[in-house]
């Protein structure tokens, strides 16, 4: 929060929003510092902009009442067309506010840049994300494990995502943690997030990518450091993820349950990107074996 004077607005607004059922959805119910900063920024922007538009809400009914056709005793000056004072006010006030907001946007955009690592005394966890049709693959390169549609990571420790897509453009988002970023075929984007407390949050693709788009959800589980270690060790015994297992996984499908892999082929993420860039996708990968059909 950048404007102490507007702090009370935020407190009131938060209470109001909580009562409307926003308390466990979206970035207005932040579960991490990014989402929290975004919420605060959202509320302060709203408050500042209201300075311009509230006068209009107040003035319009008054003007309509005062100058209604039937009220013949109001001033009627059909040739009145200009006033320097008013003109200065209606240009000046928005300009000042946009100036203030612009300065603020510059600052906050840099603070909340998804590529900027989150400062913490704990080491950052690296996760590589591959958007598939219609599921998410999470590769833990340092732990050498992978999971599909379930993201497990330690709370209170920065997570750095590197994202790409096997198919079309997708967008990776865990609403309660904040920022989203596109995952694009043949390219890598980055996202830094942090969950303050352990908890289970919904993650999703936000970019339409075909018939089962609405079902491309996953669970993001923030757990304690200890539980995370435990979970990683449990996954080691799962089947390995090599290129042929990956090809099978990459077929268009919707998974009803999360899938886990033990030993991943090193450099798989990079290989996926290189392959997408060099192979023209003439045929769709599969669409034959589907665990559950996306719709009709």
């Amino acid at each position, binding site marked *: 929060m950048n404007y102490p004077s507007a702090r009370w607005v935020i407190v009131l607004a938060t209470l109001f929003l909580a009562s409307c*059922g*926003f308390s466990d959805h*979206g*970035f207005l119910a932040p579960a991490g510092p990014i989402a929290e900063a*975004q919420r605060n*920024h*959202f509320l302060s*922007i709203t408050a500042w*902009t209201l300075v*311009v*538009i509230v006068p*209009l*809400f107040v003035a*319009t009914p008054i*003007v309509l009442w005062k100058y209604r*056709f039937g009220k013949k005793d109001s*001033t*009627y*000056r*059909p040739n009145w*067309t200009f006033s320097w004072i008013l003109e200065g006010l*209606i*240009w000046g006030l928005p300009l000042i506010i*946009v100036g203030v*907001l*612009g300065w603020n*946007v510059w600052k*906050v*955009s840099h*603070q*909340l*840049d*998804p*590529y900027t690592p989150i400062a913490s005394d704990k080491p950052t966890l690296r996760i590589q994300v591959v958007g598939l049709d219609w599921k998410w693959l999470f590769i833990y390169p340092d732990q050498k494990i992978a999971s599909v549609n379930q993201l497990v990571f330690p709370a209170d420790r920065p997570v750095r995502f590197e994202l790409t897509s096997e198919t*079309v*453009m997708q*967008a990776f988002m865990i609403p309660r943690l904040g920022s*989203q*970023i*596109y995952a694009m075929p*043949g*390219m890598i*984007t*980055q996202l830094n997030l942090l969950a303050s407390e352990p908890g289970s949050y919904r993650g999703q*693709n*936000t*970019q*339409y990518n*075909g*018939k089962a*788009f*609405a079902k491309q959800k996953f669970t993001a589980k923030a757990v304690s450091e200890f539980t995370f270690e435990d979970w990683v060790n449990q996954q080691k015994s799962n089947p390995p993820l090599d290129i042929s297992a990956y090809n099978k996984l990459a077929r268009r499908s919707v998974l009803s349950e999360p899938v886990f892999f033990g030993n991943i082929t090193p450099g798989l993420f990079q290989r996926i990107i290189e392959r*997408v*860039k*060099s192979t*023209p*996708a003439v*045929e*769709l990968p599969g669409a034959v074996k589907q665990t559950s059909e996306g*719709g009709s």
Partner: protein
Amino acid sequence: MTGQPFDYFWLGKLSIDSLPFVEFIRDPNSNTAVGAFAKAAAIGGAMGLMVLLTVFGKWRVFWHEWLTSLDAKKIGIMYIVLAMVMLLRAVIEAGFMRAQQMLAVEQPGPLAPEHFGELFSTHGTIMIFFMAMPFLIGIINVVMPLQIGARDVKFPLLNAISLALTAAGAVLIMISLVIGKFSTGGWSGYPPFTELAFNPGAGVDYWIWAVTLSSIGNTLTGINFAVTIYKLRAPGMTWFRMPLFSWTALCTSIIMIFAMMPLTVATLMLALDRYAGFHFFTNALGGNMMNYTNLFWLFGHPEVYIVILPAFGVFSEVFSTFSGKRLYGYHSLVFATMAIAVLSFCVWLHHFFTMGETADLNAAFGIATMLIGVPTGVKVYDWLLTMVRGRVRLTTAMLFSIMFMVTFVIGGLTGVILANPPVDFAVHNSLFLVAHFHNMLIPGTLFGMFAAYYVWFPKMFGFRLSEKWGRISFWCWSFGFYLAFMPLYALGLMGAMRRSAQWFDPQYLPWLVVAFCGALLILAGLASQVVQLWVSIRDRDTTRVPGGDPWDGRSLEWSMSAPPPEYNFAVIPQVHDRDAFTWMKKNGTSYTAPEHYEDIKMPKNSIVAPVICALTAALGFALTWHIWWLTIASFIAVWATVIARSFCQNTEETIPASQVREEHERWLRSVKALKPAPREHETTSANQGLAEVVV
């Protein structure tokens, strides 16, 4: 998905599966039933029109008076009719989408996901390219030449061809409802989803050609309007005496000239990818979809201002006319309009803050976006101040304008919010965004176009629209809008994503139910407009305005009969003031016969435009279904038509001065017989189009 083609040489990829009702007969369920209903409605509508034309024997009139006409007013009216037909379809589609989302909370809902994908794609494509654009181009065609004192636009045939291309695109979209399926790639058609590898069907091709045809038509329209305004203003109509609607028409035209091309380029490049194996936006071999997003939004953002600026112009005219007062802050409004037109090209990147650009770039575009809020805010306050010290008459047009003013600023607020990259990262692609742009486009563009329709309808047809039904539709649309879209803001903040055919969160349900009720109310508003048109035509003898000035208008378009003669002005007027017609009325020159009349040259009707419409529609259809012989034949035929036309020498006809004199004097006599109506009786049958002059 695609069956065996009938005969690839003659019929391309057309197969039994692309025929209407096949799907429903094979597998009758709620999804295919909705599809069958839509197909039946489209076929029924087309057949019904033909039967009506035949029964009433109007084919000849339809052809000679309308389709082949080069009169900008008639072309404008055809544009508006096209827009309204498409509006009807797209609103009904919106109703189905709202129903689906409401019924799909933790269950599949009545529609299949692909069907839902087609619905949001056609809804968006139609609303932008075949509703908003034709509507505003139609209004400009009718009003702008009259307002600047011109007899027609500069290039009448080009005008008709623009309409032909837009109509051909619309025909293609309508055909896609009946034959085959439409794209599911949304109105923005992002690759690689729309590339052959992921969407091999004909749907994306329908989208490409429909949009390409209309975008070429719109470029030509922009050129035509801009040249008209630059070159054909009446003597004395200096830049700063030009009515604000014409100013916005000029700015919109300039944006069209520059902004339609990126769209044409983007869709044609996508077509090359799909048809010829190029690699512009593919995943592999050096294609890059980011080039598409840049091209598309280089068009897409200016497009927002293409559709909103003319509405701003309409509101400026409405606030001034119905407050009985000169426009407040005219220069301010002009500069604001131009500022918006320039800034509209500097903000496109805010449509993809989440693509991983640097924070510097995102912040710069965020600030540029917020800057647009300044001239827009200025406009809103200038309109408010126009009412101050006026005498405000709450007619339907004024109601829509006031509702626009207060509702639009909410959209402006959320626009400023979305301009902040940090917030956009949280609500991009969500229903918050959907709510925002509907909040701009419905009160902005659509209410503006409705206001224009109510204000200028009497000028177009010579009688007023029913005020009662207008008010009913106004309240339905207004409440409907708030009910339908305010919940979407909430849903977006709760993480609900756009284009979802299904939900997994029961807490969304109450909001979705409210939004559905809003959609029903909007449908009721649309229905009451249909009723209004019917009632108004039925009662037209009580609402005629032969004087041509039903609203105590201020600019030149009110200075002639309603409907105006083909040549608009018996004699091109001399302009003395910004409110040219008010000046005439004050100085007693409004209904006086000039000293002498001159012969007037007007363009003859031409069959070129309807021929080009049919040929380009055939071309689009042939390309969509890979019917190559038809593609080549229709492409050659289009250019052969153009070349053949260039050999026509007698393209103009002369209306002799004597005829002009007779018509004008007859009208002047009829005006003398009218009783001036005081503004209290504006909406009663006492209003015969002659305003009481209060000096």
